[in-house]
């Protein structure tokens, strides 16, 4: 069928069953926006392009499919880069469509021209600068395939304006044929056998799960295998909420900011089975020591992750879901009574502090929230102390979901990602938790939520400080505190009023209970400001 390439772009999105896109228009992307108008695809106007990427990221993580964000050429495209890098670090499939100046102007520094494919290259799984309009259907098919398959990641499509306006004969390909891209999904049967033999032989086996479990949708499989063989489980930050915190085999998050039970488990186990976890430096500080004392079995769909940060005694390249299925078929019931009893002895109850008057212990408030909120709540933590408080303090029930920017640690991720998550799962409560620092990096998105009636709940922990950096300065730089005070911040309740959204402030136990009730029961955009003691430690 003959049509303009910009219409073909819309047809491609329809063929990929895209229902919503996040973006910000500009001159160079106008042809595509014009074609989008009568398409039935919902467009969400963000207030900053980086948030278009984060919203797509939140949507992709909850829907399990690549999500789309759009920006214009030059500054619009460049603003997307933070979101692209954030998605890349956490292996989130997003498709970024950017406008570009006319092909005959590329390279001449015209108005709003930026080499976005060049600038974003380190952070994309793949990118295209489309110069032939006839390539549009193939490029889109490939982009969705590449973003969502193998180890997922962001794919960028840069579309010059004249290419968007050119006429083409549109036919959407059924399959993407890329001879140089064939991700391994099926685990090698021989290696699977060897992994099982190691797990059976182990006296103190431990499973460490990462974000790869979500990427391969292997949540059920990993729970099933752990229970079949009675193997204790710990998680990286990216794997939080795969296991319910009520699960007796689950010992929490490991790492610099992890909990004692998880860190003891990883130090004492004899066989460590890594599933979709890349052993980032925040999870394992001294991989060499671990390598020497422990048999490491490592499943990852990305061969480059195996042996990158930690040496594996037994590598297994494949999709976690498939590999775990194969393992479950071979698994025999086992007990590890002594080992489990020992780990149980390291479980610690959180002790809360008496906070300064007019504030609450943030960890206690998080604990209260997790008791109040329904089990299927999606919790999006920002970056800083609030991330750690939420990651280790929120008690996830069955069916809950935790999202955060784990790899890149991008401040301002929580609110936009929550908006995307809520749109992917309108029936689930979605709650963002952030600090007063991060909120001021993304609070413009409150307008986006209001404009599109996306009922997100926002918890802002305020201490008028960049708490985590301040803690670093206190401990590592002799109390020399610089550039960590947020004087000049607005009154957040008045800000909520200005936006016309419901809000309340938490300053003591009573108001904390009321806030938890409000977050639980009120189905609308909510902002809860929680005054927290500035001296509360991260851990």
């Amino acid at each position: 069928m003959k049509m303009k390439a910009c219409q073909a772009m819309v047809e491609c999105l329809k063929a990929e069953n895209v229902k919503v896109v996040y973006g910000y228009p500009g001159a160079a992307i106008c042809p595509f926006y014009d074609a989008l108008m009568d398409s039935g695809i919902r467009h969400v106007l963000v207030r900053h392009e980086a948030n278009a990427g984060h919203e797509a990221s939140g949507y992709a993580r909850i829907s399990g499919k690549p999500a789309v964000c759009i920006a214009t050429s030059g500054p619009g495209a460049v603003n997307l880069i933070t979101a692209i890098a954030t998605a890349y670090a956490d292996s989130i499939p997003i498709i970024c469509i950017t406008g570009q100046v006319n092909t005959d102007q590329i390279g001449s520094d015209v108005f709003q021209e930026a080499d976005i494919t060049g600038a974003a290259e380190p952070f994309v799984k793949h990118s295209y600068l489309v110069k032939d309009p006839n390539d549009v259907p193939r490029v889109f098919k490939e982009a969705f395939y590449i973003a969502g398959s193998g180890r997922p990641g962001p794919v960028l499509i840069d579309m010059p304006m004249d290419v968007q306006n050119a006429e083409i004969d549109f036919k959407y390909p059924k399959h993407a044929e890329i001879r140089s891209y064939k991700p391994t999904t099926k685990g090698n049967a021989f290696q699977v056998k060897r992994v099982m033999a190691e797990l059976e032989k182990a006296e103190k086996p431990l499973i460490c799960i990462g974000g790869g479990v979500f990427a391969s949708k292997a949540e059920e499989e990993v729970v099933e295998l752990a229970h079949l063989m009675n193997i204790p489980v710990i998680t990286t930050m990216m794997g939080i909420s795969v296991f319910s915190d009520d699960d007796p085999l689950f010992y929490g998050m490991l790492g610099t900011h992890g909990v004692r039970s998880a860190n003891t488990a990883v130090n004492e186990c004899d066989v460590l089975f890594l599933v979709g976890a890349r052993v980032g430096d925040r999870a394992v500080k001294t991989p060499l020591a671990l390598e020497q004392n422990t048999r490491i079995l490592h499943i990852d769909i990305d061969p480059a992750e195996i042996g990158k940060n930690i040496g594996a005694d037994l590598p297994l390249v494949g999709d976690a879901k498939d590999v775990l299925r194969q393992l479950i078929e071979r698994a025999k019931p086992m007990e590890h009574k002594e080992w489990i009893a020992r780990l149980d002895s390291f479980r610690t109850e959180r002790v809360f502090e008496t906070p300064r008057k007019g504030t609450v212990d943030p960890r206690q408030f998080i604990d209260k929230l997790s008791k109040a909120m329904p089990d299927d709540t999606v919790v999006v933590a920002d970056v800083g102390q609030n991330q750690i408080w939420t990651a280790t303090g929120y008690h996830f029930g069955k069916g809950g979901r935790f999202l955060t920017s784990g790899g890149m640690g991008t401040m301002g991720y929580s609110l936009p990602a929550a908006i995307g998550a809520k749109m992917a799962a309108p029936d689930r409560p979605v709650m963002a938790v952030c600090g007063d620092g991060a909120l001021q990096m993304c609070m413009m998105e409150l307008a986006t939520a209001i404009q599109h009636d996306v009922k997100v709940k926002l918890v802002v922990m305020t201490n008028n400080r960049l708490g985590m950096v301040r803690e670093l300065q206190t401990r590592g730089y002799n109390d020399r505190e610089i550039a960590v005070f947020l004087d000049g911040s607005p009154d957040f309740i008045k800000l909520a009023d200005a936006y016309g959204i419901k809000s309340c402030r938490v300053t003591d136990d009573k108001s904390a209970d009321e806030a938890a009730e409000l977050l639980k029961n009120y189905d609308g955009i909510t902002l809860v400001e929680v005054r927290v003691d500035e001296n509360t430690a991260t851990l």
Partner: protein
Amino acid sequence: MKHTISVLVENHSGVLSRITGLFSRRGFNIESLAVGPTHDPEVSRITIIADGDEHTVEQIEKQLNKLIEVIKVRTLKKDECFARELMMVKLNCPAEKRSEIMTVAEMTEAKIVDVTLTTVTLEICARYNKLERFIEIVAPYGIIELVRTGTIAIQKGADTMDRKK
């Protein structure tokens, strides 16, 4: 340790920058890089000489393989490939030195490609080590300019990029 890495890539614009970008951002050192089309116009072959230990080379291979446009990567061991590099050197060459330099050229299997009243330009194609020795030998005459292509390499015997012997 030096490694010879052979890479088949889609002959698209931008591929080379993806590859060089990957080397720089991952902290891999490139000694030389040579690229050109193959008998299949859609495929280019790149030969990279890189410095690093076994772990680094393994990571280079894996990271290269992750690039969508990379079709095949192989690290070629010294004894399983022929490696060659082309070099051209312009030397100071007054008339009284001409015959001496001609003798050097003959002994080293270098070719004289250009002569002027004051200079001579030599061309030599050989392995990396031989080129290094050649530079030592001609340096005393005064090197005015020197240019080299970077090493290219091909497997010995019937072995190809697709199939090991």
